[in-house]
């Protein structure tokens, strides 16, 4: 009897706590800032500059969400997370969303109970090799020595790739990216393999970047994207459609330069719905009509963000590749705003 009363009280308390807990959107609005988990520093993707301002490709997603929800792209509290602390920070509610070049995998989505809201960068494992070796394809790498970080999925991908193509290689195990740079430059290995964006960033730090080439083969799928917790689908929708708004804006030619003009109304109903001059998309999200306009104005559309942080004019110099719009042969494909 006593036990059941106790359990009943616990249940009631639990239900009350559940009902009393505000939604993430209400929390963020009440707090006035968005808690966004980022990396402690990754070239081009997220790093504070000399004035302590966070900049980068992942940071831009946080800023866009803050602009959409709070109307202020600077109302973000960036919470730096390491590869080890990122998931607990999100699960425990310390951060509202995580934008930390995190690969979307089955187990993270299902088992860790997170919701990946989309992909903002399609990465994949690539190869870097000195130009003087004259190799133009990874399939010509028979007998090469390969610098590879131990204990990562890249190691397994490499073994699979070489076995599938029936060629041999000799691995040179290394621990960190910094060590890999030194080993590779010292000639301890012919090839360095890791994620293509990482290779490009590494190459950018070399004294003579043009002496090294990235081979065209990408041998694994690493879709990186922002994620939120399970259990608050409205909040997940907001982050998902903010990312989609950035991608769609590029597709429709809406940029930070012409958005003021386009926001006064256009002939294209899709743009009008996106920018809030037609329809009530913003209200459906629980936001106002101009949410997407603010998100785009924060850093520009997807293409502008890409070009500014990691594009070909930056020292990192990544080509769009898979991250081009679907109309240009890439994988970026926002569902319609309707």
């Amino acid at each position, binding site marked *: 009897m006593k036990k059941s009363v106790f359990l009943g009280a616990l249940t009631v308390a639990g239900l009350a706590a559940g009902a009393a807990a505000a939604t993430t959107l209400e929390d963020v609005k009440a707090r006035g800032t968005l808690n966004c988990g980022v*990396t*402690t*520093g*990754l*070239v*081009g993707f*997220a*790093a*504070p*500059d*000399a004035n*302590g301002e966070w900049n980068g490709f992942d940071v831009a997603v946080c800023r866009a969400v803050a602009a959409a929800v709070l109307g202020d792209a600077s109302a973000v509290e960036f*919470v*730096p*997370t*390491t590869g*080890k*602390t990122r998931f*607990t*920070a999100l*699960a*425990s*509610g*310390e951060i509202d969303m995580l934008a930390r070049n995190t690969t979307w995998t089955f187990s993270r989505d299902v088992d860790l109970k997170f919701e990946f809201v989309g992909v903002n960068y399609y990465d994949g494992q690539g190869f870097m090799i000195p130009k003087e070796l004259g190799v133009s394809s990874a399939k010509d790498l028979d007998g090469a020595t390969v610098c590879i970080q131990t204990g990562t999925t890249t190691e397994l991908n490499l073994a699979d790739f070489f076995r599938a193509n029936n060629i041999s290689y000799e691995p040179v195990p290394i621990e960190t990216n*910094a060590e890999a*740079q030194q080993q590779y430059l010292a000639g301890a290995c012919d090839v360095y393999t890791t994620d293509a964006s990482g290779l490009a*960033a590494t190459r*950018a*730090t*070399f*004294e003579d970047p043009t002496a090294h080439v990235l081979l065209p083969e990408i041998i694994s799928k690493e879709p990186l994207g922002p994620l939120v917790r399970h259990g608050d689908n409205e909040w997940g929708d907001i982050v998902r459609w903010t990312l989609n708004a950035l991608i769609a804006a590029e597709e429709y030619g809406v940029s930070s330069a012409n958005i003021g003009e386009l926001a006064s109304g256009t002939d294209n109903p899709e743009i009008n719905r996106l920018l809030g001059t037609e329809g009530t998309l913003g209200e459906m999200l629980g936001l106002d009509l101009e949410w997407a306009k603010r998100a785009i104005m924060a850093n520009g559309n997807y293409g502008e963000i890409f070009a500014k942080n990691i594009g070909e004019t*930056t*020292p*990192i110099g990544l080509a769009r590749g898979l991250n081009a719009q679907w109309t240009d042969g890439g994988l970026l494909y926002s569902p319609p705003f309707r």
Partner: protein
Amino acid sequence: MSDTHAQSVAFVRDTAIPAAPAPANETGPVKWLRENLFATWANALLTVAALFVIYLILSSTLPWILGGVWTTTSLAECREVLAGQTGACFSVLAERWNQLLFGFKYPSELYWRPILALVLLFIAAAPVLFFDLPRKLLIFTALYPFIAFWLIWGGSILVPIVALLGVVGGYLVYSRFVAQSFATGFFGGIVAALIIWYIGGFITEALAPANPMLTAVPSRDLGGFMLNLMLGVTCVSLSIPLGIALALGRQSSMPLIKGICVIFIEFIRGVPLITLLFVASVMLAYFFPPEANVDLFLRVVIMITMFSSAYIAEVIRGGLAALPKGQYEAADSLGLEYAQAMRLIILPQALKISIPGIVNIAVGLFKDTTLVSVISMFDLVGMIRGPILASTEWNGVYWELLGFAALLFFVVCYGISQYSQWLERRLATDHR
């Protein structure tokens, strides 16, 4: 008799030979060289080899250091300026100087506050470290933690004042009741302090001004070498008293106290520090509701203090064990009670024996504070590994940054070690 040999000796010298200068190889630098560097063939060979190694090291590092560039804004510019010549890119230190010392979020117009706190730290530590100084200075030492807290974190001045009142109140209650029984005094003091803090919490909340005299800075904005120093100083000064208590507790004849101390020490020593830090940063977040977040800095301080106090307890236990049993018996035969015996006879001797061990732990602890970079706190190493090396301008500058970090740590650790050697000489009462 004096002329007995007058014929046999042709010449008798009647004045002393003027002192000739010592042979050239028996004096001055030459003698020193011969004795110390070229005493034997083996030594001479070793000297030449050592000189060659020194030459190799200097000839490769000196041009690198002296040819260093200090004024560019990125690594690429450094390389342009150097144009293929060897030279370090110290510009990163110049540009990110404040970030290395204070982290990237501490407001730059408030840098004077931690600097002032550091200067005051030397004044506060002086009477503890050098006991020839007037004892009245200890009053400032007692006040220092509250002043430093207020300077670094800012906010309402009522918070440190209430904290201070709690400590004073607790001490008054303790000294009032300790004559009756130590336990009454001890727990009464703790209860009094808690009551004062609890009531004071409401008062500070009610009276907190909207614009405090010093702008409040949250803990997560702390960083750089400042964070290392703060963690090191706080944890060392907290863990020494705690370690003494644990060491005495482990020798206690009361089974409960002894059991608790033994379990605590053995558990903490059996767990790596990095595990404790992960518990502090990751696991505790699950147990607290998100809004009732205990400050991360405080969590880390608690964990590091627990860790180092367990080690210090073992060092001090070694000191206690080294004392002859006669010392304990002498204290008993003088009619001293436990607290007096410990304070007047046992601990002064045991602590003196333990100095090298304690300093060893303190130096290790100070260097271990860089481990907080793995739980995404931006201490000196965290700043280097994270924001600075991840910026597009400075990606690839390793030697300069890590060398600078090593230099800062060396200066502090060498200072600690020199002080401990001075202290050992100063306390040397045995007649060798």
